[in-house]
């Protein structure tokens, strides 16, 4: 898994490439935690290059959402691939997480009234 972060206009886009699983989930959680504790609480996960998430990956995503929301922000997902979307849907994540067809829509959503 490779992670790339980019902050602009108070919103941090975290690009995730590869698989979020038992071997990589801690690293992803660490990245989100560092960002939130540094004050970046409006997060967008760019999932366009995310191939797969196992249960460990789901747990880290859930942890990141909780953390961001506890600090007054949110984690929103963008450009989720079909296979990952099926796992997110199966696990009920699509019911509790906001997700958008592309990164731009997810970034823009933070400007909309809650």
């Amino acid at each position: 898994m490779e992670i790339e972060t980019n902050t602009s206009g108070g919103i941090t886009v975290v690009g995730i490439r590869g698989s979020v699983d038992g071997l990589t989930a801690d690293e992803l959680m660490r990245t989100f935690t560092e960002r939130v504790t540094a004050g970046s609480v409006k997060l967008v996960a760019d999932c366009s290059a995310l191939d797969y998430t196992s249960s460990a990956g789901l747990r880290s995503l859930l942890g990141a959402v909780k953390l961001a929301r506890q600090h007054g922000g949110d984690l929103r997902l963008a450009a989720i691939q079909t296979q990952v979307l099926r796992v997110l849907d199966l696990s009920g994540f699509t019911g509790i997480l906001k997700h958008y067809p592309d990164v731009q829509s997810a970034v823009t959503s933070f400007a909309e009234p809650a």
Partner: protein
Amino acid sequence: MTKSVDRHKRGVAVVIGSGSVKCAAALGLVNALNRAGIAIDMLVGCSAGCLYATMIAAGRTTAEAAEMTRVLWTSEIAAQHDRRAVFRAMFPKLLGFDARFGLRSDRLIMQRMRTAFGDMRIEDMKIPLHLTATDFATGNQAVFSSGRAIDAIRASIAVPFLFSPWPIDGRLYLDGYMSDPLPIGVAIKEGAGVIVAMGFESPFQETISTAGRFAFQVSAILSNNLLKSQYSFHALSHHAEVISIIPEFKQRIKLFATEKIPYIIEEGERAAEAQMPYLDRLLSAQSAA
């Protein structure tokens, strides 16, 4: 007695959810695991998934299991009406009505299962096997880790209204999907650390032209929502690593479409193959730890 998992062995637990003939995709998963040199050290099956879990646990090859399905799982098994049940439903006070209600006769499926599995016992399988059903009186999940395999399978495929609940040791059991369509929790409870779960959503009806289709639609709605809620609970609240494999079927698969078994296996294999590099790295990391 339940066999425990050897944590030092390079193996995984495989859970096969309900899904009628689509469960044959598990044979593709077995092919992918075999090629990657990954052993199966536990099998859990639910509903039709019990058939495949049992065949794999008994050491049947993919080809043998596919052939067994073609013989066992044809539309004829649900074609024979149980006329007495129909009349008992219409005139319960006159003819009597009890919990062993099913609109179809199970004579043929039982006959075929006897031929396929004989008196095989769950505790004698080559791989530890757990089959799930649903207790008719309480609605609780029942897990069979010993006993005659065909009893547990028959209980687990007792589709409500279609086949009557099945008695085991004085209790009646219904289809396993009624309590959990993808019983990952059983593998967790039995000590599995890495779980490969193959699940299937129930198909929705294209048209509701009969009472039967109406019932199947209602059942699919309930079952799919239950699948999601149970999956999310197990995936999020335990330390075990759950690798979900959900084959994508572009072709519509009907309940008894055994002619599509090669296609189903192929799609199961394709979906499983994508996860093999990760499984390999995960198990290697665990062995090294």
